[in-house]
């Protein structure tokens, strides 16, 4: 079947790949085909070197020393914050809080905002597309304070049921916790429209952008969110880096998340005054080298261009989707069109459990995720225990899509299906 990509990629993928040392590795003699980017991304030399430079040239704890090395490290760390603020178009870098990952970001909001703002009988509206990181914290908080959680369903194409969402919002809502982009299906929610609707219904809006910030331009002011969280490790940065963005007015009125060093302005035996934003939320020695790595990753992504990265990934989806769907016994879950989706393709092969699929793929050098993708309510909705998921990034190629399709045939051959 003749399928061409939607648009010839405008990325110089060969040059990009040369920046990623791990991509030249082999797996059992076969080239590494890394298609598990929704789980975590690989790291370019530029990020690795930015982090090495701290350790090799000027490492010292941030915000503390009055000597040159501490000042230099602090400066690079705060520069990284400014870069992140620029990436998501935050009105102020004081609104960007460094955390370990999106999960910690949601927990920060759940503890520091949720506990003071959600009461018995309040309603939290969320969706069946949420990663556990944007579901379990709300479920548990609701149980603790006696709030109610409403979960909006999807249609059979993996698109959010807007009618149901509107109905839930109309019933009253204190918080809308919604994913920008589904890690399980690749669906992109129309967050801007939804946030406006939720605000009109009186909600505070938290957006889980863990699968969005790495792959598409995200503008917090344009989206109209109140909180937005993301992970660094999914966007070329090291694990241990990530961010929460929140509106100043909200952050100012929140209690701290963690107590301890660096987050204070004055401590006496009887009371403590908090540091100003954003440091009020950054207790203890932070993962400052990881944050610096995140800053370098932001530079890298912006140089390539997030709109171009998104376009490149859609090109890969348009290439691989019909090829997968053409294989007898393969079921693809989620959006079948290129509209409002990212480079995540979830599927199953009839008669083969996803774990067996992934094990056989591994022999072909193809790394994919098999499991519930921290998305058990979604798996239940789909009526499957698990799926196999391929997820693309800026360094993936159509040849790797061919390897994926070849691996599906290999698995079918082994199992005789």
């Amino acid at each position: 079947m003749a399928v061409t990509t939607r648009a010839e990629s405008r990325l110089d993928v060969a040059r990009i790949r040369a920046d990623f040392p791990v991509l030249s590795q082999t797996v059992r003699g076969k080239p590494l085909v890394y298609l598990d980017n929704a789980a975590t991304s690989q790291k370019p030399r530029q990020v690795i070197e930015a982090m090495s430079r701290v350790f090799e040239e000027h490492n010292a704890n941030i915000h503390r020393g009055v000597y040159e090395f501490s000042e230099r490290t602090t400066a690079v760390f705060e520069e990284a914050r400014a870069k992140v603020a620029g990436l998501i178009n935050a009105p102020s870098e004081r609104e960007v809080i460094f955390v370990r990952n999106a999960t910690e970001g949601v927990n920060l909001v759940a503890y520091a905002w949720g506990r003071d703002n959600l009461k018995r009988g309040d309603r939290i509206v969320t969706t069946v597309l949420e990663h556990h990181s944007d579901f379990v914290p709300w479920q548990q908080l609701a149980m603790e304070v006696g709030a109610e959680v409403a979960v909006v369903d999807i249609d059979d194409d993996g698109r959010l049921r807007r009618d149901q969402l509107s109905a839930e919002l109309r019933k009253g809502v204190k918080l809308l916790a919604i994913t920008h982009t589904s890690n399980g299906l690749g669906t992109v929610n129309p967050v801007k429209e939804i946030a406006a609707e939720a605000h009109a219904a009186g909600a505070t809006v938290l957006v889980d952008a863990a699968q969005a910030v790495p792959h598409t331009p995200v503008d917090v002011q344009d989206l109209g969110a109140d909180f937005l969280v993301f992970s660094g490790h999914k966007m070329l940065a090291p694990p241990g880096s990530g961010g929460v963005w929140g509106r100043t007015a909200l952050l100012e009125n929140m209690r701290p998340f963690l107590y301890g060093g660096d987050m204070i302005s004055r401590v006496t035996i009887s009371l403590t005054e908090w540091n100003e934003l954003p440091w009020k939320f950054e207790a203890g020695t932070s993962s400052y080298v990881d944050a610096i790595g995140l800053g370098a990753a932001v530079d890298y992504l912006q140089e390539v261009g997030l709109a171009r990265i998104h376009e490149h990934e859609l090109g890969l989806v348009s290439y691989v989707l019909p090829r997968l769907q053409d294989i007898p016994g393969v079921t693809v879950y989620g959006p079948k069109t290129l509209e409002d989706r990212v480079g995540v393709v979830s599927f199953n092969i009839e008669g083969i459990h996803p774990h067996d699929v992934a094990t056989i793929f591994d022999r072909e050098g193809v790394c994919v995720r098999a499991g519930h993708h921290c998305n058990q309510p979604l798996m239940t909705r789909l009526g499957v225990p698990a799926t196999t998921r391929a997820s693309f990034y800026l360094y993936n190629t159509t040849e790797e899509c061919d390897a994926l399709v070849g691996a599906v045939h290999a698995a079918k051959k082994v199992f005789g299906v």
Partner: protein
Amino acid sequence: MDDMYRDYILDHYKNPRNSGPLEGATHTYHDSNPLCGDELTMQLRISDGHVDDVRFIGKGCAISQASASILTEEVKGKTLDEVKAIDRDHVLANLGIPISPARVKCALLGLKALKGAAWGLTAWPGEEVKAK
């Protein structure tokens, strides 16, 4: 020839031995691997301290289901004490294939359910929440 998905493994997966509910079961234990969605119920009929009959009900990956199937063939006729003495190394050796670290839990789900049944457990120690 695939080193992990050998013909006999796939045969046990596609044609599981001793599969389905066991009438007159005296010992039953259900377990699962939430990570991958493998489900397994092991049922024993013990009389006179011997495994009179054994069957399992399961769904999941080839490794978990084949391992359980192979195990049921082995324990039929054994004494309860012999069943209790079966350990993980024995099961892995008996499978006869290299099991990667990420798949060990799949390979041992059948054993875990069998042990739970043999010891008459309602929940695995430390996982009591499952009993609720």
